[in-house]
């Protein structure tokens, strides 16, 4: 029996199909430890070796990685939610009820999306906090800190645009309060300093552009939906790519020099 299993294993792992997929054996050798990271599209973002302290949770708190994980969770659950949700004032709220009562695991899906999004806001703050406390923004990593601040801002914008989509009292009023600030923009808002002097009115200022109207209404819902599902995630992904790339290019994780 033993011999038979060995034989089967051999013929499987020595086949052309297997070899085309797996380029190296799984034996625990230093060479394989390198290849395990280098040959894997998901793992190759890592260096093959890191300073000892970079593997310690007490140093990194894992917060950057967790933020990325939570982004992936919101992306996956978000795509699934998009199957059931229509971003128009007639349907949006009913679709939320549909998700809650009719769609299998619909409520679970929505909960997961919302809590992962809230979690992401917290972990991105904690990540920034850790990076500041370890002074990791110092040369040569200045620019990656700037990219990180952009990512922080985009995270908040993603969360904010998503807040409107349930189209209930909580969401429209939270977004009303938030976007009301835009009317006070200096020069560009109709209630901001020197705005009226420049001809700003409720129906032509920067808030109007943001909302697609003079108040939070159906055009706002569509606008925020498109921003939330298309523009901001793509924007975030691009800057994440830069962020991860720069970690490597700036010499990996920071450490006492």
């Amino acid at each position: 029996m033993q011999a038979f299993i060995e034989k089967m294993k051999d013929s499987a792992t020595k086949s052309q199909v297997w070899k085309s997929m797996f380029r190296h054996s799984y034996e625990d050798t230093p060479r394989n430890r390198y290849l395990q990271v280098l040959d894997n599209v998901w793992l190759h973002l890592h260096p093959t070796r890191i300073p000892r302290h970079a593997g310690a949770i007490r140093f990194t708190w894992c917060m950057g990685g967790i933020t990325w994980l939570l982004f992936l969770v919101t992306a996956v659950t978000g795509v699934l939610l998009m199957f059931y949700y229509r971003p128009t004032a007639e349907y949006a709220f009913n679709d939320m009820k549909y998700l809650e009562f009719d769609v299998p695991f619909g409520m679970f899906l929505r909960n997961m999306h919302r809590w992962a999004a809230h979690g992401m806001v917290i972990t991105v703050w904690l990540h920034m906090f850790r990076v500041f406390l370890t002074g990791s923004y110092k040369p040569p990593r200045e620019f990656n800190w700037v990219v990180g601040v952009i990512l922080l801002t985009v995270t908040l914008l993603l969360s904010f645009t998503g807040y409107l989509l349930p189209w209930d009292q909580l969401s429209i009023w939270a977004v009303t309060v938030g976007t009301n600030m835009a009317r006070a923009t200096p020069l560009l808002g109709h209630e901001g300093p020197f705005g009226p002097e420049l001809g700003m009115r409720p129906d032509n200022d920067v808030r109007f552009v943001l909302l697609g109207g003079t108040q939070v209404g159906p055009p706002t819902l569509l606008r925020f939906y498109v921003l939330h599902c298309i523009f901001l995630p793509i924007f975030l992904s691009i800057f994440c790519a830069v962020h991860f790339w720069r970690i490597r290019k700036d010499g990996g994780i920071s450490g006492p020099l």
Partner: protein
Amino acid sequence: MENLILILSKPDNLPIAMMVVLLGYYTLLWWRQARKNDGIISDGRYSELQDENNDRIFVWPYLVRIEFLAAILVLLILTVWSVALDAPLEHPANPSKTPNPSKAPWYFLGLQEMLVYFDPWIAGVIFPTLIIVGLMAIPYIDKNPKGNGYYTWMERKFALSTFLFGFFVLWVALIFVGTFLRGPGWNFFAPWEAWDPHKVVAMVNVDLHQYFGIRSSVVAFLFGGFIVTAYFCLGIVYYYWKKNTDFIKTMGAARFGVMAFLFLCMMGLPIKMLLRWAFNIKYVWVTPWFNI
């Protein structure tokens, strides 16, 4: 107290409680490691830290396994959280029925709380912009080469205390106040008070120039303008006062100017909070176009 418990138990506010706990934990973690490293450095054993940095470990398996376990743990917590607590869904959107209080999402409530102390163009537009720009400027302002890549306190006291003050007091604490202590009409309610929509609040706020008995609006304009300008000139005064120190010399005039401006803007918030809470002062500078 009932009211506070009611707000605390809202599922959307649970993240705030989680954040406060996590922040406390990680601050302690930072402090312990910082003090340990400070001890090592003041003993002249900095090379020990460097040795650890130069000691390499394999990513496979030593880092990948941590990432994998962390991912499982986070997904587990998230699953339990999603099973246990439902995302809120209130009545359908109704533009003609304004809830009181109307609040922004919890992570913006620090900004909403700033509206008490500054007009919307500052609290809602200028300050958020300055927060983003200011954060981005940090690496270019902070010329202290020490404390790069390890926890410390001793070597970066000013940078750390400024950041901690801004993050803990001006961001997190204001979120806490905005969420839990601001009720109908954005009035302040102590934790043990019920949120009474009919709470009577005396309008006793005055502008700074009224404290000095200035009645003419032109004089008030000049007076307020002088105060605000003088406040920002503190940076220039400090520059000339400390001109010959190493700190100013490494900074240079332009970099110091940016830092002083951002720092004074940031400190403007606690100053105006103090003026409001202790002296009922609303505006420092009143003009026909804007108020500060």
